[in-house]
């Protein structure tokens, strides 16, 4: 559902089918634009306001042996070995890779290893549970363009949803986006899925910012209903283009006055802030790609791109990822042509697929969503290897978020964000067995004490689903 309206009220009912309707969030980023240099020094972060204070927790040198490994980059190793220490992947290989002294060995026979799962589209923290109006912090729906707002200033680090995403979904990194009420919704924040007292303590060190944009129904409905622009799709584009013109002028100024909105937009034009663009319809995506050309920026990913299958060739040529659900459809007009084969058809055309959640429940099962999308492709004759499907929820997401040089695949030197699954991760019968973030064991299926409980849930009857 895109996070357009806060929940509660009618949607909180058990049968909330009809109420939700308005979903749709936002968008995405494209993979290649960010090299590590620019990623580590985003423009607007010159003074690093609200800088990350995240530090990895202690871990022991660990060797996972005997498991089937999907490396996140499309590689598959049977009876493989993954070594990690000091927070980093040390080596990955087949059974011939020797385990150095001092490593704790975990037998993964019959099990599977993947990189930590990454959700490119989450609202944990900015629409946390309990979903009461006081917690509705995802849409600054007071102006159609709010590039000046930063999602991190809304994130509640005690959202119970982080724990479920870890324990059930193996989520190690996630991007928190503003909602989709606005054409330009503000900056995202990328988090490590590790509870902290502060949002700074969760911020993924060195991750670039993205800006959320939204096309289509939501902005024109929200503002049109108030009698102001935009009230149509053409109005959406006009407001966007006027704003980009303003940003171009600002970017050309030699010593401009500080302007939070313009700083974000100038960062986009400089290629340092990515664009995550909520957009459902094929025709609108094609227009947005032309708008990006007109003003000289790159869309990193289209989010909720339910019609990408109609323009998969254009998306490949423009190097834009599609962040999609496996099979959501029909909740709003622009989702009417959603088909479950979408992801497979995009992949088959050579374009980039990311499976996203936009939802505090689906984030717990991105592996299953990817498996469904793969199977729907297989039934139409598109066979996609399991190892490629895993990249949809690991490396491809990392690419579109600009963090692929740091995580997303099991490559020596990358962060040791690792999931040991107790079976095939593309099966409904499989659960995360152990999850490491930067080499620290943060979840163990067999150890109820190694499961985080947010402050909010402490002393409550279910105590964070650990009772």
């Amino acid at each position, binding site marked *: 559902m895109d996070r357009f309206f806060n929940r509660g009220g009618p949607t909180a009912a058990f*049968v909330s089918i009809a109420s939700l309707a308005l979903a749709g969030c936002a968008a995405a980023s494209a993979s290649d634009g960010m090299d590590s240099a620019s990623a580590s020094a985003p423009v607007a972060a010159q003074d690093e306001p609200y800088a990350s204070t995240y530090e990895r927790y202690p871990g022991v040198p660990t060797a996972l042996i005997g498991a089937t490994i999907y490396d996140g980059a499309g590689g598959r190793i049977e009876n493989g070995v993954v070594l990690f220490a000091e927070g980093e992947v040390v080596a990955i290989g087949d059974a011939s890779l020797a385990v150095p002294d001092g490593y704790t060995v975990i037998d993964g026979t019959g099990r599977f290893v993947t990189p930590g799962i990454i959700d490119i589209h989450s609202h944990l923290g900015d629409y946390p549970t309990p979903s009461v109006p006081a917690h509705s912090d995802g849409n600054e729906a007071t102006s159609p363009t709010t590039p000046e707002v930063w999602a991190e200033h809304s994130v509640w680090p005690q959202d119970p949803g982080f724990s479920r995403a870890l324990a059930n979904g193996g989520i190690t990194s996630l991007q928190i986006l503003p909602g989709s009420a606005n054409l330009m919704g503000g900056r995202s924040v990328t988090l490590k899925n590790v509870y902290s007292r502060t949002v700074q303590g969760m911020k993924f060190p060195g991750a670039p910012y993205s800006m959320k944009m939204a096309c289509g129904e939501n902005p024109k409905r929200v503002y049109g209903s108030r009698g102001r622009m935009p009230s149509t799709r053409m109005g959406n584009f006009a407001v966007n283009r006027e704003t980009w013109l303003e940003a171009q002028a600002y970017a050309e100024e030699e010593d401009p006055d500080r302007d939070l909105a313009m700083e974000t937009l100038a960062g986009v034009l400089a290629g340092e802030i990515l664009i995550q663009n909520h957009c459902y319809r094929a025709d609108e995506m094609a227009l947005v790609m032309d708008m990006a050309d007109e003003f000289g920026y790159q869309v990193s990913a289209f989010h909720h791109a339910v019609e990408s299958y109609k323009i998969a060739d254009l998306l490949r040529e423009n190097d834009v990822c599609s962040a999609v659900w496996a*099979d959501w459809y029909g909740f709003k007009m622009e989702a009417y042509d959603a088909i479950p084969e979408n992801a497979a058809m995009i992949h088959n055309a050579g374009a980039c697929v990311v499976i996203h959640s936009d939802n505090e429940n689906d984030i717990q099962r991105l592996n299953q969503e990817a498996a469904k999308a793969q199977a729907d492709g297989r039934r139409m004759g598109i066979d996609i290897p399991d190892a490629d499907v895993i990249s949809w929820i690991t490396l491809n997401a990392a690419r579109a978020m600009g963090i692929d040089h740091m995580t997303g695949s099991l490559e020596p030197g990358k962060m040791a964000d690792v999931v040991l699954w107790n079976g095939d991760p593309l099966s409904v019968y499989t659960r995360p067995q152990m999850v490491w973030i930067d080499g620290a064991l943060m979840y163990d299926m067999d150890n109820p004490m190694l499961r985080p409980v947010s402050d*909010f849930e402490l002393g409550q009857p*279910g105590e964070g689903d650990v009772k």
Partner: protein
Amino acid sequence: MKRFLALSAAVLSTAGLTLTAAPLAAQDIAITGATVATGDGSAPIENATVVVRSGRIVAAGADVAVPEGVPALDGTGTWVTPGIFASITNLGLVDVSAVSSSNDVRASDSPYDAALDVAPAINPAAQDFSYSRAGGVTRATVTPVASSGIFAGQGAVVDLGADFDAVTQRRAFQHVEMGERGASLAGGSRTSVHAMVRNALSEAQYYAQQGEWDEHGMLSRLDAQALSRVVTGEQQLYVTVHRAADILSVLALREEFPNLDMVLVGVTEGWMVADRIAASGIPVITAALSDLPESFERLAATQSNVGRMVDAGVSVAIGGYESSGDHPRSLPQMAGNLVALNQVTGATGLSWGEAFAAITSVPASIGGLEGRAGVLASGAHGDLVVWDGDPLEVSSAPLRVFIDGVEQPLDNHQTRLRERYRTLDESELPPAYRR
């Protein structure tokens, strides 16, 4: 398997894509060599046979012979099960949720509440009907959502056959909100919900006993008439409630209105009072995987809710919808997750048989079709789904679907779009000409 699929294509070409005015004729059919799950809670049976004649199940099991004259299909490599029974859906009430003119789930401004009846509004040609059918859902309950008052109105039982005779039981149940949502609809407090329910049932009792409407009461004539069937127990009362304490308050209603035939819906905190629910004999319809404290009435949310209630002896169906991504065809995935849950230390899931029953025989029984749907038992509706694998596995899908012995078309708007865009080639004509 190949032969099987070839036969399928031949049959389907006669069924066509459009709805038929009346149900198609039932076929006699036997499927052999399949893995068969009967839906009754038992484990799947390998290399088994299912026989359907005149639209009814004749037999299902390992030692079943194919009667003479019944065409036998080789089901090797497939799974054969009863159709999924989806509880608490909006099937046929919605084309696009956010397009209000296409959405009949809520009647916010209606002068009526309990009297509302979904049956005449159900449109079996809605795409969600065909998507669900293609997902192996063969029967369902359809409910309105409370909006003009705490009573939502009367739901129906439907089959998903590709014809216009969808409703198999009209006015099957009344639905009332008695948790946070009910409190909001009742004027801001649970106290008002309980006062309104008691008043409504009292006025309905008067109607039932006197045969006339109390014009000085609060209920309209039609609402009182509708609820008169609830208070006498002729019609089920679905009660949406989540908080443990609220569940007990609802159970206590029967002390005042002993004939109420209740079904609890939602029941997120049911595990905390599972023994009390079990002792009441009242069945439950709940989401399988609600594990977040979405509201203050769901602080004890856990994926173990279903398993713990089942272990306590509660009859639990998995159903209902919580987000835009939930559709009837995702019920097998929800059930499968509860099988996986058993592996987590401290958690309680379901056995495979229990999980499958929770989306077939149990909801069918709650829907008034005990022994007649959701189960491969002699005399039951000939609702069969032939799957390409374990139906609870996310990679599996139906190959063929039969309702009352009639093979169903599985094409729809989505499958047509898929075929249209299988290629993006525009060298001859635009895609609009590909159909």
